[in-house]
Structure formats: C-alpha cells, structure tokens
C-alpha cells in the first residue's frame, strides 16, 4: 500500500480524463442558459457619453445589452471590505482602460461575442494619470493597510542615523513590473436565479467570500445564495476576491430572467481580476565591517488604482527577516488609472524579498563576504519586530541542506569567473520566508454503513491537493484506505471554510476535519464497546483502535470487526460528526513563519544576453508536510512562478492610452518547459507544535519567495551586472556584455 502521505491526488484521474467539471462546464437543469460577453472601455479616464447598441441588438440571438443605463441597481455598501465595488455598471464613470462598460447577452456565445464587438461606446474623456510616481512625491499613505490590521510604516531603533553612520552601505532602488496571474482556467460564472435565491457556479478561491459579496450586493440573506466551485484551474490569487464580472453575471441573469453564463476572454483577464502591482522599492542597508547589519530601511511604493485600495506589503519581511536593532519600513501608494491590483502568489514577499535579498547580495559583495555567511551572521533567533519567539524556525538547516545539495562551495566568489565553454556561469542564493496564516473553519465527517466515509468542507482545491489532504486526514483517523473516502468541497452548502489564499487552507481546515474525525471515531469505538454482539464488547474504548476499515483491540489486532458489521447490527445508516477549529492564542505568543533557501545556477550567453536557469535547489522548512507528492509539486510550481517573475513576465501598458498591450498568452511570457530546468526540492524536517494542531505551516507561496532574487544574484555572479529592474531580459544585459 502506498503510504498515505505520498498518495497521488485523489482527483487526478478525473482531471486527466476530463471528468472534473469546471465552472464554465456546468449547465442549468433546464436548457435555457444565455451567454454573456463583456464590453470593456478603450479609454483610461472619463465618462460614457453614450452607448449605441442598435447594431449589436440586430445580431440574431441577442436578448439584451446591459449597460449602466438599464443594469439592475445593487447595494454597494454590504459586500464586504475585500470586495471591489467597481466597475459594476452603476454609473457612467470610466476609471481605467479595459473597464467593464456593457454586457452583451445572447442565446449563443458566438452571438454574444459578435454583439459585444458591435456595441459602440462614445466618451467624454478626462485626463488620465498613467505613470506611477517613482518617488514619494505624489504618493499617499495607505488607509487600510493589511485590511487595517497593521500600520503601513514601522520603525525600531534609529535607522536613519545608524545608516548614515554605517561603515558599509547599500542604497539602491529596485523595481518590479505589473504581473498577471494567468491561471489556465479562465474566470467563469454561471448565475441562476430561483425566485429570490441565487445559485452560482464560479471559478473561485473563496466560495464563502463570493456568497457574502453577492448577498450584500443583492440585499439577500446569505442563506439565499449558494456558490459552487468543485474544481478550479489555478487562481494564484486572482480568484480570491469577488471580482465585478461575478456580480455582473448575476445582474445579467436578473435582467433577462434566465440563467446567464459569463466567461472572461484571456484579454479580459488582464483588466478584470487584479494583478501584482508595479513597485518601486528603495532599500538601504548599513553594516559594520564584520557584516553585522546596523540599519535596514525599506521604502516601498506600489501602484494603486484610482478607485479602490490595494497596497503591496513589500516591507513586511524586511521587518523580521534579519537581526538588526535599527529598522524602518514604509509603504506608500501611487494612484494611476489602472484596475485594482490584488494578491498574487506571495503578495508582499515575492516583490519585497526580491529587493531585500538583492540588496543583501550587494552587501555581501561590498563586504567581500560569502552570501550565506552574511545571512548567518545576521540570523534572527526571534522576531525582533513583533518581539516574540518564532513558533519554529529551521532556516539554518535550509541554508545547510540547500548548499550541500547544490554544492555551493564550488562557487568561485569573483563575478565572471566561472564558465562553461563560452557561457558565463553564475551561482546565486536568497532566503525565502512567508507568514503562517490560519482562519476559522468547519467540517463534517460521515462514516457510512457501507464502510466508506465522506468528508465535507467548503474549502476550495485550486490545483494544490486539498481534496487529497482532506481524504488523507479521514483515512488516517478512521483507518480507511483513500479509495473509501470521498471528499467534498467548493460549495457553500458545506461547512464554512476560508479563502484558499495566504497558504492557509491546510492549516485552517485540517484541525476542523481532524476534530470531526476524532468525534466520529470516539462514537464508533463507544458503540462497539457497548454492543453485546461485538467482539469488542466490554472493552474500554481507550483500548480500541481503527485500521484497514476495522475497529480492533490495540493489544490484539485480530480481535475486531468491520465498520459495516457494526453499523449493520446497530441499524445505523451512518455515524456523523461536526468539527470546527479556529486560531487560538498562538498568534499572540509566537511569530509564525515558514522559511527556506533558494539556490540557482544560471548560464548567460556573453554576447547575446540570454539567461537560462540551469539548476535550482530549494530547501524549505514549513512544518509538517501533509503529502510529500502534492507538496513537492506545489513547491516546484512556486519556484517556476518565481522564474517567470525573474526572467520573462511583465505586463506592458501603453504610456498614452493606459491599455495593456500584451494581454495574450503569446505576448505575456510565462516560462515554458524549456525555461524550466531540473528543480530539486528539499523538505527540511521541522516540528512545530504551536502553529496549529497539525503542525502544518503552508507551502503555496513560500517557494516563489526569493526565487527572483536568487536568479538576479546568480546573473550578477555570472556577468558582474546587477539588474535591479525585473524581468531580466537580454535588452537589460546586452550593453554590459562583451562586444
């Protein structure tokens, strides 16, 4: 039998055989679905003067064109702080290029698409702000930084004075571009009204978040709204909040009195569902001659929309990653006429640690010190920002094991000193860190008369393996093989679970599932011990155990019976229990983070400036890994995500129109197979009894953090050129190379 912690994903077969149904593949019970296609603005600022729908309405099959003039009115006040309240066709404002302005609704997708292309928009243009500020002038302080949970700036000690007095200084600006999540599955919504009840199939990272938003917009009790999302083809943060197209689908369905399906095009996915905002980060490091940090200053500006607020928390890692008495971090926003940014895999850390860890590499060179040695010299044994101990931190082992696997010691310190034939070889490293998050969650477990079990939890599986981990937990606690456990998720009819974001799903839902399992198990053992016809009758439930679908005596495993036998005799259809769990005191007592170390070898063509990653070793300590196989996949995926950030990905915006110019998969370059070399993932053993009852810290985002810095540092080692502006493409290297 395959050990349960390396089990293959339980939904794998469904996915590769096409049996997994995604949001756009559902259809209403009656065959009466209409198709909706969005019409988006072609200017960045102004008002809609008029909308001519005459030609669009002539397309055969068109049922309606929904615009701000005929759209149902909705309540913008109750959808929740995290829900964008714009653009929802409630007024004539245009705040960015690519903004929803109309919805074409027709009996076929083709007719809706044709009609959408024939809607004529006329504008009164306003002047748009299209370039973000490069410096604090013209920027503002976030009003709701981290949803108001922490201040946007912090200081400890005397950072400025200590920096001024430092023996060795690094003072640089680092830039990251707009990036888009680009999950494979497009965002899709099927909305169906049944009287004042709303059923929505949605590609979602947060079915309960969607429910709250839609109930708020339409003034309904939350129980009247059901969101279903059994499979999600990737989200990376883009399917976390309730983006306007979801609400527009429900509004359209209301307007026409029929179910409506709305699927975003790839191009529309560049202006409809958030993005990682552009950042400009000023990092200053001061150190003494021995390499001890005396000052860390990290001032971040991130691009924001003109209508909502999202702040990229680039400096949070700088507050706690290294031991330093004098630290200052600021976050500011620069408003431009672009859509609202959002969380994207490792928000804050992905961009911020690129800057910090590039600066640390620069400091290592300035000191003539090995980059790992510099990090060890400044190793933080406690969180000096929160002034708390870490619940666990095994970063030293990550450096050690990563360096050993990578053979870091072969590195010749001098830049441009390692070659393979003509190619310049560079080795670089960086630290990874990501906070441990957890939210309240509930679950239901049902052991059935046929000896199978069902676990229900309204979480989401966004490709990460949530189904598998849910089934595994039941298998472990009830002694069942995985093929006798069915997991159900992605439905607000199930017990409530949080957004699949912030790497928190397993940490949040596992304790609830465990609790439900333990209750089912206790009831079952009790039942067996109390049943005169059971071979286990009269034993103390404490003496009993479960394994291989049986209840048995721990001391004499042959004595026992199957679940089926017990439930049949008892005349029970099932034994069922609820479980719920929420964070306790741990956050007050401990600082909780995962850590890791990234090691990269690049080859740079000295004439052509092409950078290719040749090898990547990532060593991560993230508490208990629930499933080594799905976990490894997730870590590799996270690293590839970071490779794209480092070398190929950037959303380009036209400087005059504010329009995204590369809104296709042909022009927005995610890494392809040939860009991705051998990736070695090391799961560094770590036990953490404080974070949550399972000791699992979350791994979805950690492996993305530090990847871009490690690559940039390797490029420096290869070429002697420090690229402080991602992505690192040939045009940025060519001038400094050989010819």
């Amino acid at each position: 039998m395959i050990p349960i912690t390396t089990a293959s994903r339980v939904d794998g077969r469904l996915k590769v055989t096409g049996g997994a149904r995604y949001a756009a593949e559902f259809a209403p019970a009656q065959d009466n679905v209409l198709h909706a296609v969005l019409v988006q603005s072609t200017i960045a600022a102004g008002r809609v003067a008029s909308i001519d729908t005459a030609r669009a309405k002539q397309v055969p099959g068109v049922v309606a064109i929904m615009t701000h003039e005929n759209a149902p009115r909705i309540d913008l006040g109750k959808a929740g702080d995290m829900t964008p309240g714009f653009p929802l066709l409630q007024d004539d404002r245009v705040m960015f290029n690519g903004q929803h302005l109309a919805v074409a609704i027709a009996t076929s997708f083709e007719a809706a698409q044709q009609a959408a292309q024939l809607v004529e928009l006329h504008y009164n243009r306003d002047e748009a702000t299209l370039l973000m500020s490069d410096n604090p002038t013209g920027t503002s302080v976030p009003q709701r930084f981290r949803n108001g949970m922490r201040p946007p700036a912090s200081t400890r000690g005397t950072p400025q004075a200590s920096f001024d007095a430092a023996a060795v200084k690094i003072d640089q600006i680092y830039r990251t571009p707009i990036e888009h999540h680009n999950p494979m599955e497009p965002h899709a919504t099927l909305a169906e009204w049944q009287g004042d009840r709303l059923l929505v199939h949605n590609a979602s990272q947060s079915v309960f978040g969607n429910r709250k938003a839609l109930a708020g917009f339409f003034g309904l009790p939350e129980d009247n709204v059901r969101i279903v999302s059994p499979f999600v083809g990737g989200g990376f943060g883009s399917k976390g909040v309730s983006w306007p197209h979801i609400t527009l689908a429900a509004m359209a369905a209301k307007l026409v009195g029929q179910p409506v399906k709305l699927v975003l095009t790839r191009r529309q996915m560049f202006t409809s569902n958030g993005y990682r905002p552009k950042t400009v980060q000023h990092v200053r490091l001061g150190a003494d001659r021995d390499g001890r940090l005396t000052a860390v200053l990290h001032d971040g500006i991130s691009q924001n929309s003109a209508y909502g607020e999202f702040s990229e928390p680039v400096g949070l890692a700088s507050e706690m990653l290294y031991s330093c008495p004098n630290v200052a971090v600021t976050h500011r926003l620069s408003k431009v006429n672009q859509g609202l940014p959002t969380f994207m895999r490792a928000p804050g850390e992905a961009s911020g640690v690129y800057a910090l860890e590039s600066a640390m590499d620069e400091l290592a060179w300035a000191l003539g010190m090995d980059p790992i040695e510099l990090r060890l010299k400044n190793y933080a044994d406690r969180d000096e920002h929160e002034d708390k101990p870490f619940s666990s931190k095994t970063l030293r082992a990550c450096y050690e094991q990563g360096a050993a696997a990578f053979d870091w010691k072969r590195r010749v310190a001098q830049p441009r000193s390692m070659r393979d034939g003509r190619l310049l070889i560079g080795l670089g490293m960086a630290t990874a860190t990501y906070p441990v998050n957890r939210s309240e969650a509930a679950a239901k477990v049902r052991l059935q008369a046929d000896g199978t079990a069902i676990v229900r939890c309204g979480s989401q599986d966004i490709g990460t393996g949530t189904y598998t981990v849910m089934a595994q937990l039941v298998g472990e606690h009830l002694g069942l093989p995985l093929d006798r456990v069915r997991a159900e998720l992605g439905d607000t009819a199930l017990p409530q679970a949080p957004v699949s974001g912030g790497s928190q799903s397993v940490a949040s839902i596992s304790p609830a599932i465990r609790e439900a399992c333990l209750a089912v198990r206790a009831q079952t053992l009790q039942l067996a011990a109390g049943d005169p016809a059971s071979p286990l009758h009269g034993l103390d439930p404490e003496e009993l155990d479960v394994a291989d679908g049986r209840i048995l005596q721990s001391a004499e495993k042959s004595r026992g019976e199957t679940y089926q036998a017990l439930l049949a005799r008892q005349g029970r259809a099932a034994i069922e229990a609820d479980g719920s769990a929420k964070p306790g005191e741990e956050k007050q007592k401990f600082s909780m983070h995962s850590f890791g170390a990234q090691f990269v070898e690049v080859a740079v063509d000295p004439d052509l400036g092409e950078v290719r990653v040749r090898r990547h070793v990532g060593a991560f300590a993230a508490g208990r890994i629930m499933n080594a196989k799905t976990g490894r996949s997730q870590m590799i995926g996270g690293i590839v995500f970071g490779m794209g950030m480092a070398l190929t990905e950037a959303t380009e915006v036209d400087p005059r129109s504010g329009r995204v110019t590369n809104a296709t998969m042909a022009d927005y370059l995610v890494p392809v197979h040939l860009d991705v070399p051998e990736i070695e993932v090391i799961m560094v053993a770590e036990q953490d009894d404080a974070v949550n009852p399972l000791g699992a810290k979350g791994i979805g985002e950690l492996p993305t953090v530090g990847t871009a810095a490690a690559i940039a540092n390797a490029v420096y080692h290869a070429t002697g050129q420090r690229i402080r502006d991602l992505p690192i493409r040939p045009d940025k290297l060519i001038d400094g190379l050989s010819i």
Partner: protein
Amino acid sequence: MQPFALEQGRDIADTIRRGRMPGTDYIAGGTDLVQLLKDDVRRPRRLVDLEGLDLDQITVTPQGLRLGAMTRMSEVADHPAVIRDYPVISQALLASAAPQIRNLGTIGGNLLQRTRCTYFRDTASPCNKRSPGTGCAAIEGVHRTHAIFGGSRQCIATHASDLAVALVALDAVVHLSGPNGARDVRLTELHLMPNDHPDIETVLHPGELILAVSVPAGAWTRRSSYLKVRDRASFEFALTSAAVALDIQDGKIRAARVAAGGVGTKPWRLPAVEQALVGAPATTATWQRGGRLATAGAMPLRDNRFKVRLLRATVTRALEQVGGEA
C-alpha cells in the same frame, strides 16, 4: 468574431475564382487566421479553405528544393533531405512556435502570417496596418520588440516568420497562381515595405495563391544555420535572428547568404554583409566584421535600441557557428 461562410474549391482554378471575391480570405492551417478572427482583427465575409488542393509535396532535385504551400511546418522540419542539405530551413522551422502549431501551420501560411505587433492585434488601438489612417501606436508606445529596419512614419511592425528569413537568405522563389494566371516572384520581392501603406503587405493580387516555394540548390545550402535570440527559451518570436549559409573553400568564403529576423518590417536580407564576406578568410575577424556591417542603416527607437547591438552579436555568432572558429 463576425460570421463568415466557409467554402472549399473543387480545384485550384475554382479556389481562385472564389478567393478573388471581395471580403474573402484563404485559410490554410489557420494557426494565425483563427486568432485574428477571434480578436476581430480580420472580418472576412468568406473563408476559402485550401485543404485538399494537393499542394503538400516536398520535392528534392539536384536543382533544388520545392515545398508545396500546404506542406506542414513539421513535415519540412523533419524531412531528411532538408535536414541534410538545407539545415537552415529545418532549424528556422524548429525555432518557430511549438510542435502543435508546427503540425498545423503550413509553409505558405507561415510566409503570409501577420505581424505580432500587439497594437495590430488589439482593435481598440490605433494601427495603420489594420485600420489605415488611424496612426501608429507603437512608434511612441511599447516598441521594444519592433523593427529597426524598414520602418516608416506609418508602421514599425516586424515580419514575424523565422522560415521567411531562412528562405530569403537562400534566394527562394514563390510560385503563384491567380485570376490572371501563374507567375513566379522572388521571396525578397513578395513582402512590401510599409511606407505609406502598411496595410498592403505583399505583391499578391486579390485571389492570388501561393502554390509552392522553390529554393535553388547552391554550394552554400548545406553549410547553413539559423540562430534565434528570444525572451524565453521556446515558443516565442525573435528579438533578433540570423540565417547564414556559406560556401567556404580552402579557408576562403566563396559565397555567402545572410538574412536577419526580428528586426525588419519584412524578412531582411543583408547584402552588405554578404559582399564583405565573399573573398574574405573564414576567421573570427571576418565574422565580427560581418556582424558590425549587419546594422548599417538601422533606425532604432527609444526602447529597441538594444537590437542594434544584439543583431551584431547574433550575426557574428551565426557566422561563426556556420564558418567555424579560426
């Protein structure tokens, strides 16, 4: 996408009769055209499918290579005689797109693919090539990947084909058939410079069809290669590329064919480089000189200036790969 009728001709004559009607596009592999239809960039009323016209032969004779217009990119790339005698063609094809697209894309369609300029492909942007008279958004916009050769005030879009660069270098001839009969056109003459009419991209008359492409044999074709530089390792268009074919005897270059991609508004032959190479010794200094001459007359803009340096390096490297280090 706007509705269109899809038709098929009985034979070539019937196909051309249908193809000459206003509002008609031919469709071959469809790997480019279908995207353009979906993005509303092309709005033909009628498509005439070229499948089944028996235009998919690869013929190798002592006189040269003949590729039927409907031959798939992958078939040509994998053809043993092409790999052996015309490696630059095979390499240019294998550097193009991805296997799935090469299995569908045709030789004729590849030569007539439309530019990758992102403004051309976004109907909400001005573009003289797509909508004459609306202006060129790229000249002052995002133009990192645009042309440094052949641009005009109206258009700086590159021709995106790798294959065309290799074929232009090898003096390929395009065999056409149209309403007014058959004619042959040198591939260097097939594509037009944008000048004041970037919307008119080729010398093809309405309804005129590419039947085949011929490459004359030459002492240089065996010693040939294609080098492509791009932002990611695969499935991406060229920042710069070079097709090189050399005939070297006793350390001296007897004949040279050199063309560049990713830099021109059409497949860009580099005659000045060729002239400098002929008669020169096959040495590193010669390759470097060739590389330097490759950018004579380049007119880069703000964000594609790097292509000047990159093209020199690309041509130098390609020459060296073909001619050897000495």
